[in-house]
């Protein structure tokens, strides 16, 4: 699939003062081809930021530029209304027009810009083919499955060839199994879009897996930005630390074991096979002075690399064969005299390892 290279970076400084206790002041910059995630808890200001960029909400101060075009600048009284911005939006809940068929939904943007019905339908069909949803033209949104709806929403946003793609919690309306499946599909489609992409989510796994750059937003401000690894390994706030919770490890699964390179981990699921993604929560890892008992556990000997105090908890990075972020209490740390360089045994129960089929 050819990628659309449009080359218009997004530079958004959004300042909004809604009421006494709600304001947003963020600065986001996304290069073409890069996927950025805006990750934060509910009420942090994600939707407000997205609305401002989409043009549904004017900023009180700041400036939004897409390529050479200024979309919003109060200081020069510039404001481009949403219908004139070349931005594709995939909304939470998709918001497919219930009274229009799938084809009419996808063609909507083109028809609104004056494209003739025949031509709009052709472009729409083209995109449906690309996203693998041909055959659904005459269906109504109410008759679609979650996965189908997501792809229709994506097609609808992409068919007008926007310069920027905004995805507002595109997976949160789905149940867990579908979500995992669609996350993969979404990742594939995002790769093909050449412009900047901004993904809004409250799910850290989603952010870390789909985005190149993550902006952590709390209380209306960006508290940290960087690559997924940077945030996971060096979280700056409590919230970021909680997010970064899971260790993500990829490997090859077969018959209850996963080969992660230098080690083989036992997992509870004996049926899964092929490429998988493992998640281990830092608190699910236990540390021991000597080799722990119990044959079920995954355990190995390693050394402590980094120790970080976060209030009454301690976060450690361990070394090979499977580097992990581990979280223990202060007491544990004192009892085990854990310091950088000290050797320790690490143990993780097979049942505490989350497994996901993942092919990239």
């Amino acid at each position: 699939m050819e990628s659309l290279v449009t080359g218009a970076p997004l530079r958004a400084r959004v300042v909004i003062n809604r009421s006494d206790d709600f304001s947003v002041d963020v600065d986001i910059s996304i290069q073409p081809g890069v996927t950025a995630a805006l990750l934060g808890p509910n009420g942090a200001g994600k939707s407000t930021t997205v609305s401002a960029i989409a043009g549904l909400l004017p900023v009180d101060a700041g400036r939004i530029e897409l390529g050479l075009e200024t979309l919003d600048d109060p200081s020069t009284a510039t404001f481009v209304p949403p219908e004139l911005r070349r931005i594709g939006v995939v909304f939470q809940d998709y918001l497919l027009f219930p009274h229009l068929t799938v084809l009419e939904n996808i063609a909507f943007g083109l028809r609104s810009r004056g494209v003739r019905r025949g031509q709009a339908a052709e472009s729409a069909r083209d995109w449906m083919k690309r996203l693998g949803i041909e055959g659904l033209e005459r269906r109504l949104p109410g008759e679609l499955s979650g996965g189908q709806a997501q792809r229709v929403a994506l097609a609808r946003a992409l068919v007008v060839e926007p310069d920027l793609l905004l995805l507002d919690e595109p997976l949160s309306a789905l149940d867990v199994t579908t979500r995992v499946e669609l996350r993969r599909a979404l990742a594939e489609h995002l790769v093909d879009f050449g412009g900047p992409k901004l993904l809004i989510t409250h799910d850290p796994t989603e952010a870390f897996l789909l985005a190149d750059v993550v902006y952590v937003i709390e209380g209306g401000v960006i508290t940290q930005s960087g690559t997924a690894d940077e945030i996971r390994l060096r979280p700056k706030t409590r919230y970021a630390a909680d997010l970064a919770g899971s260790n993500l490890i990829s490997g090859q699964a077969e018959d209850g074991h996963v080969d992660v390179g230098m080690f083989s981990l036992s997992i509870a699921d004996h049926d899964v096979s092929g490429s998988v993604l493992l998640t281990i929560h830092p608190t699910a890892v236990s540390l021991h002075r000597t080799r722990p008992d119990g044959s079920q556990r995954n355990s190995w000997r390693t050394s402590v690399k980094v120790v970080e105090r976060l209030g009454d908890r301690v976060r450690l990075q361990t070394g090979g064969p499977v580097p992990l972020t581990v979280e223990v209490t202060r007491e544990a740390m004192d009892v085990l005299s854990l310091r950088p360089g000290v050797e320790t045994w690490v143990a993780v129960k097979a049942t505490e390892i989350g497994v996901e089929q993942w092919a990239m």
Partner: protein
Amino acid sequence: MTNRRVTRRPPALVLLLGAVGLALFVVPLAGLLWRTPWSDLPTLVTSSMVTDALGISIVASVSATVFSALVGVPLAWLLARVEFPGRRLVRGLVLLPLVLPPVVGGAALLFALGRRGTLGEPLYQQTGLVLPFSIWGVILATTFVAMPFLVITVEGALRNLDERYESAAASLGAGRWAVLRRVTLPMIGPSVMAGLVLTWARSFGEFGATITFAGNLPGRTQTLPLAVFVALESDRAVAVAISLLMVVVSLAVLIALRERWWKVL
């Protein structure tokens, strides 16, 4: 294995009260049918009094419905979407005809728009236009009492409409008019139709405001309800015939629209 469907019977009290409610509708209708002079019906129904009244009723009720739509939908939109000072008061005023006795409404119209009315007098002096005692008076009186039904239905529909659909349309490139035409109105379409049906039904049966404002003249302002009222005192048989005619017309309209719009009502 037999497929036994275990159906739960509704509680006895519910059945009883429901039956009473049903009786309230069925009994008067049955009384009407019982009194109908079936053999004379064809002559009665084709008499000029009845055909004139039918014509006036249809013209007035349809005109009132159309006028209500033209004015009522924008008004409903303003009430639902625009925050202007005094909005609550305006909504109260718009809904007033729903609770006001129609005769009071008619009297108010007379005071305002009659030949000697506050606005009516200058209107008459400038243009010679007299609203009462004409078909325009009937249409105006009918619109006055029926339009609130449309406004209330459409306003409700607009409020229940997720505004994000309109945002989605804008993000796809639709300007404000396009959003209205292609998203908002189609999505509230069923409710608008339900509102129109209610408005028409109220218009068709309107009596008090009409007789007070527009007067009562066969062939000019005498609608079917007015004709029934007059006939009740002079010729019972005609009154029953007209009543039956009104029931038939109303049922026909409601049944014809049943499939598509009933579910919203």
